[in-house]
């Protein structure tokens, strides 16, 4: 087998400052649900991983993190090789056993029920699902309410999982158990923690 250098290239040029910068954007996004935070392109990973998705992975994953990847990511040897080389993550085949899930094909992703929701005693033992998107100027605008939002916040991701509002309402009802979502756009990211209430924006 020929050596594929794609796997080894493209990590953070400055791992300490790069990870700090991406984490601050992630933390701000989690604390301000639905608000879009711009992040620079700091890493380059093989397709189908986008720079933002790969940067989040490089920021959060290591040998202590169990990660589930959807089919379109796990089908790419280069992408999986890159993730393994740069983070040392532990891949799992069962989404319910994963602390993190990477989803490229948002429309075809498993239902929210397939992921770990944590237990009543330890609701933090749940999956954080990271969705790869084109952007945040989608057609369907959602109105968000909840902690981190002063009044309301509009949120228009370009893609959403199937039956999103119903699925999310179910996720919200299980609080404090539930999954959290991170949206990795192009040069920007946003997040929806389990506390956020979501409705279709009324015209």
């Amino acid at each position, binding site marked *: 087998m020929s050596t594929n250098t794609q796997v080894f290239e493209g990590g953070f040029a400055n791992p300490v400052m790069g990870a700090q910068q991406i984490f601050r954007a992630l*933390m701000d996004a989690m604390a301000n649900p639905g608000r879009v935070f711009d992040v620079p392109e700091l890493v380059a990973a093989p397709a189908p991983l986008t720079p933002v998705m790969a940067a989040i992975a490089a920021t959060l994953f290591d040998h202590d993190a169990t990660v589930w990847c959807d089919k379109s990511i796990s089908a790419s040897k280069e992408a999986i090789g890159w993730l393994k080389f740069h983070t040392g993550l532990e891949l799992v085949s069962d989404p319910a056993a994963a602390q993190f899930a990477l989803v490229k094909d948002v429309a075809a992703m498993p239902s929210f029920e397939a992921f770990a929701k944590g237990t009543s005693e330890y609701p933090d033992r749940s999956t954080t699902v990271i969705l790869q998107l084109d952007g945040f100027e989608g057609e369907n605008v959602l109105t968000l309410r909840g902690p981190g939002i002063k009044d309301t916040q509009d949120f228009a991701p370009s893609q959403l999982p199937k039956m999103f509002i119903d699925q999310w309402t179910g996720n919200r009802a299980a609080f404090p158990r539930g999954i*959290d979502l991170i949206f990795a756009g192009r040069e920007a990211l946003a997040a929806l923690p389990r506390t956020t209430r979501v409705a279709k924006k009324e015209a």
Partner: protein
Amino acid sequence: MTELATYNFAYLDEQTKRMIRRAILKAIAIPGYQVPFASREMPMPYGWGTGGVQVTAAVIGPDDRLKVIDQGADDTTNAVSIRAFFQKTANVRVTTSTTEATIIQTRHRIPETPLTAGQILVYQVPIPEPLRFLEPRETETRKMHALEEYGLMHVKLYEDIARHGHIATTYAYPVKVEGRYVMDPSPTPKFDNPKMHRSPALQLFGAGREKRIYAVPPYTEVVSLDFEDHPFEIQSFSEPCALCGARGTYLDEVILDDKGGSMFVCSDTDFCEDRQAHGHCGHLSANPAEAAE
């Protein structure tokens, strides 16, 4: 300093930071819930803010401006040494001004100046579990949080009323976050509890010895527990600050002599100094004319 002698940025190694960062994200997603984390030994003893220091180290970046307060003061041992620690290990800019700071690490006070959106308040927490003195077993308190079984806490507050005629808890006064988790606001005076309610700043709590991180996102409901006939009240002071004349701030008593003399001054030194610099003075100001300059 030679290259060999330098620490990693902000002291912690990257794997530790990732672990803390994952815990912080979960803590923000579940407001008031205590996320266990693998707290490290820090170059300072437990009780000196090892939890807060680890949270700050995982969050801070080169663009930040750090303020550290200890009981409201910027110039006490704990505040000075933690500020020096981050100057040395992260080479960040520091400040004593509440408005200029992007990250404020605090021991047991919330600044008097209202915080703004984008600021991060990091609390040092000795005992994160509000139910710990009522139920010593971690397995039981976890279950109580899981079942939202907070009757015992109300019994404790009721016993205060039965014994003293009012709720005698004055610090570490329990709050309910977003209608779900009862949380210990760290041993801040109950005077500061209303400042947590719908604060525009992100509030992070780190308990190093007890290995817990929890958080209150901006604009989150934080309600102090009380009874309809005994509503929550904050402390009030009969006299204004002796140095800046402020009313409605939290005051410390300072002993002046061995004949029982004392004065009351703002515990928030930055707030007090700022007022004095703007010409306010109290009845014990050294030189009111000078202070007014």
